[in-house]
Every structure is written in structure tokens, then in C-alpha cells.
């Protein structure tokens, strides 16, 4: 006869008893459903954007699994120089320029706050922390942007969100954790504060900088509300506003808006799904890179902040 402890040692994993068959089946079904709910809509959107026109029309607007080959007409027509192409360029500009500025400002501020023993350092850190607690409010924020003359300028979308206090805290706590010996040694060798930051701080923090860079990047790419609030001129619209107008509100894109001359426009649904895909694809491309690092980045902020 086996003793209890022997039986347990064979059926235990990490201190927990092995799950029974029922439990495993229930969990498998549960997780499959959750993953399907996330993935299937994307599959439908991709399929519809790529399905040939007659299949989309026949299916009544939505294709789940295209059976008659792949057709890039919808993509060709939105990328041939109309409203959507313009918006794509604007979003690209806002994302690249915005992310560069945001990372630069966040890292320099984070570095300055991470150096101990400077006059006023604690007070400045407190200033940053307190700003996390309150929200300046919609109307006052609008008045400030207006007062700075930024209305209807892409800078209104870029500048106000270029320093996230949360990211400053994340970067700062990473800098604080760098080994002091290296920094002290460099300082004895006569390195200036700027050189310490440039040649020691930054190279050792590539991972965390990549994470906040990607967070800022995704934020700028997705920026919708500030763009709606501050940009009146539809020529300056980023992709999210085009998406809102032509996909969510269902305004039809005519041949002229598409930049087509003379050809028949593809079905509206195909066009809409292609616009949707174009705004999703950049995120899908950077996602694997963020995914590797973000849990760590988020936790640094949450635990030490």
C-alpha cells in the first residue's frame, strides 16, 4: 500500500495537485473561446479586405473565408493618392516625430531625476508624481492649446502628450537601478553629466527605452481624440479620423477621395476593411517587439513607482 505522501509526489506539480480531466477540458474550452473572440474579427476584416468584389457583393458585405482568390484592388485604390494616403502620411509624421521627441524628453527628465544629491531633486520628483494624481480637465487643456497658438496644427497632437509622467517614473527607476560603480568611475575620469547620460545611461537602458518608445509610438499612431479636438482642417487628419468618418460613421468615399480616375471603385465594405487593416498593420508589426518587454516595463513602473 502506498502512503499519502508517495501518492501526492506523483500527482503534484509545483505544490498543487494535478488537475483532473474535467477541469482541463473546461479550461481548454474556456481559453479557446476567449482566443477565438479576439482573433476571429481580425480574420473577417482581413478576408473581406482581400476578397474579390463580386464575392463581397454576393455575401452581402462581409466575407469570413474567401474562396475565390485574393484581390488587392481595395488597397491599391486607397493607396493611390487620395484622402487615405494623405492621412497615412500625417499619421506617419505624427508617430515618428512625436515618438522621437517624447523619448528624448522622457529619458532626459528621467535621468535628471535619478541622480541623487542634487538641490531640488526631491521637489521636482514630487512635482512629476503629483501630476499623476489629477487631470487638468478638458476645457482648460483646450484653452491652453489655443493660447499657445497650436489649434489646427499637428503640434497640438504631438506636444501635449509628449511627456507621460508614468513613463518618466518607469525610466527613472531603471536609471536608479544602474550600478553606481560604473557611474562613479566615469565621473572620476572626468565625464560630464551629459556624457554620463549619453555613454553610460542610454546604452545600458536600451530595453526599457525600446518599451516606452513603442508605447509612445502606439499612442501617437492611435491618437484620435486630440486630433478631433484640435484639428479643424480635414487635410491634416490622421488615419484615426479618416477611420472614424469613413468606417465608423459610414460616409462614402467617392472616386475623387480615393484618388481614382475613371475606374470603378471597389465595394465600400472592401474599402472600409482595407482602411481598417492599414491602421492595424503597423501595430501588428511592432507588437511582437513590445510583447517581449512590456510586462517587465509595466511592472517596474507599478512596483517601484
Amino acid at each position, binding site marked *: 500500500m502506498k502512503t499519502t505522501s508517495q501518492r501526492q509526489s506523483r500527482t503534484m506539480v509545483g505544490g498543487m495537485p494535478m488537475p483532473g480531466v474535467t477541469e482541463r477540458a473546461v479550461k481548454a474550452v474556456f481559453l479557446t473561446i476567449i482566443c477565438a473572440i479576439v482573433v476571429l474579427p481580425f480574420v473577417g476584416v482581413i478576408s473581406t479586405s482581400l476578397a474579390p468584389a463580386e464575392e463581397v457583393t454576393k455575401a452581402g458585405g462581409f466575407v469570413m473565408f474567401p474562396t475565390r482568390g485574393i484581390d488587392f484592388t481595395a488597397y491599391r485604390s486607397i493607396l493611390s493618392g487620395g484622402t487615405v494616403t494623405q492621412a497615412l502620411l500625417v499619421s506617419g509624421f505624427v508617430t515618428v516625430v512625436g515618438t522621437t521627441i517624447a523619448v528624448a524628453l522622457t529619458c532626459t527628465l528621467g535621468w535628471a531625476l535619478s541622480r541623487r544629491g542634487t538641490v531640488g531633486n526631491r521637489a521636482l520628483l514630487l512635482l512629476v508624481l503629483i501630476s499623476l494624481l489629477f487631470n487638468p480637465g478638458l476645457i482648460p487643456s483646450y484653452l491652453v492649446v489655443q493660447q499657445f497658438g497650436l489649434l489646427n496644427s499637428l503640434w497640438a497632437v504631438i506636444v501635449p502628450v509628449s511627456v507621460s509622467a508614468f513613463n518618466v517614473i518607469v525610466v527613472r527607476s531603471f536609471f536608479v537601478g544602474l550600478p553606481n560603480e560604473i557611474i562613479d568611475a566615469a565621473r572620476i575620469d572626468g565625464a560630464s553629466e551629459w556624457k554620463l547620460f549619453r555613454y553610460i545611461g542610454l546604452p545600458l537602458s536600451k530595453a526599457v527605452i525600446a518599451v516606452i518608445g513603442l508605447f509612445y509610438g502606439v499612442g501617437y499612431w492611435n491618437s484620435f481624440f486630440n486630433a478631433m479636438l484640435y484639428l479643424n482642417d480635414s487635410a491634416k487628419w490622421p488615419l484615426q479620423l479618416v477611420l472614424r468618418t469613413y468606417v465608423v460613421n459610414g460616409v462614402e468615399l467617392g472616386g475623387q477621395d480615393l484618388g481614382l480616375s475613371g475606374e470603378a471603385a471597389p465595394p465600400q465594405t472592401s474599402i472600409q476593411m482595407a482602411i481598417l487593416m492599414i491602421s492595424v498593420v503597423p501595430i501588428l508589426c511592432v*507588437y511582437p517587439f513590445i510583447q517581449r518587454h512590456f510586462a517587465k516595463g509595466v511592472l517596474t513602473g507599478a512596483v517601484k513607482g
Partner: protein
Amino acid sequence: MLLLAVPGLLIILAFQYYPLWGNIISFQDYQPYLGVGKSLWSGFQNFSVIFSGDPEFLNAVKNTLILTLIQSVIVFPAPIVVALVLHSLLSNKLRQFVQTIIYLPHFMSWVIVVAIFQQVLGGTGMINNWLRSHGYSPMHIIGNVEAFRALLTSQVLWKDTGWATILFLAVLSQIDRSLYEASAVDGAGRWRQTWHVTLPGLKPIIILLLILKLGDSLTVGFEQIILQQQAVGVDASDVLDTYVYNNGILGGNWGVAAAVGLVKSAVALALVLSANKIAHRLGEEGVYRG
């Protein structure tokens, strides 16, 4: 070296602290062409909308509170359940795989989420197409006043449930394995272990997040609602943030909108501070000490 801090600090001062000054238009009859300097003072007149019980304002308050309540009851516990299931998986690879998939929607903008929901649930969307082709009658969900709260809730669930599991999973991975072993020796099965070891391990983070949620209880689904308000109308969908936007930016009632925003911020701050106090009374860490 403080020179390095200057550009970043200027941005924080300009766009976080400086706007606080703009709240004085709550006490003015603000006219954009006169500016804050020259507009006339009006005392507490802008606040009378709030305290005299303007029906539109009360509607926004009601919708806000109902949505917050629904979200606390349904949206808040969902990631805890998912995290518990993921935590109990034996295969690290499988867990990683599922996590990779369910984090994804968090990185989509609200515009994308709303667009995707329209494509799935709309009149000619995925589900209704399927229903029609199989001889069932289609469901009217998008633009349906009665289904609006359910729609908002399912959008929030879809977008952020996966992402919210991150924190819970991190906390769960810190739980001491020997606690499980000890409880197993005492004869605890998997359910008892979950109840007596896993859940108590989660308690501090659950309380912390509830406190933060309380501070946000007057803020629900701003972008999400702005995007869909046209389809269902203001009655069903107006919340405090959309009220401020519609009245101030679109309607030109700057003073009233600013007053509502100011009261909202003040109440939110008071809620966080008091929730934190309560947490301390209960012997928990809370957000901060002090």
C-alpha cells in the same frame, strides 16, 4: 545636470499644471473673443446648472454612475478569473501563447475597436450575415438604445480584459510555492488551495485596483461613447465627459462645461483620498502612505 530636466519639466508644467489656471472660467461668463483676462465674473452662476438639477446634467450623472456600476461588477472581476485560469495552466508555452493573443486588443485604438464591433455585430456584419444565411432573423444591436450599455461593456471587455490580467499574473507568480505544498499536505484540493492560498495572495492588488477604480468612477468610456453617440442619441449615452465636450467645445457654454469639469475633478480627487484612508483602516497598504 538639472539642465537635462528642463525640457521635460516645461512640458509637464505647461500641459498639466498651467491648465489649472483655466478653471477660473468656471466663475466667469467666458467669451472666447474676450479671453480669460477680460471676460466678466459671474460668481457661482455656472455651478447653478449642477446644483439646480438641470435634467441634461442629471441624465449624464445617472448614465455615468450606472456604467461605472456595471463595469465594477462585470469588467473588474473578468481579468481575475482569466488570470486564475492561466495561472493554473501547467504548460508555460501554452500560457505564453494565450497571453500573446489576449493582450493584443489593448493596443488597438477605440476607433478600431468600435469599427470592428460594427463589422461583427452590425446589420450587414459577420454575425447577422451568418444568421440570415441560416434562416434566423438578424439581431439589431448597433444603434439600439436598449442594447447600448451591453454593447459598451462588451467592447471594454474585449479591449482590455487580457491586458488587465498582466498585473494579476505577476502577483500570482510571486506566491510562495511552499504555501501550496503545505496546504496540500493538510489535505487541501485544488479548489481549497485557490480559496485559501491564491485568492488571499491577490487581495492586496485587488484592493489597490478598486481604490484606483473608485477615483475614476466619474470617468467612463469617453472616446468610446463620443464615437457612437450619434447612433443612439444623448439620452442613452451622455456621460459627464461627453456632457462637458458637447456643452463646452461644441455648444460654446464654456463656463458651465468648465464648472462641471472642475467639480468632477474635485470629487474624483476626494474619492481617491478617502478610499485610500479606508484601505488603511482595513489594514491594507493602499496607494500611498500619508
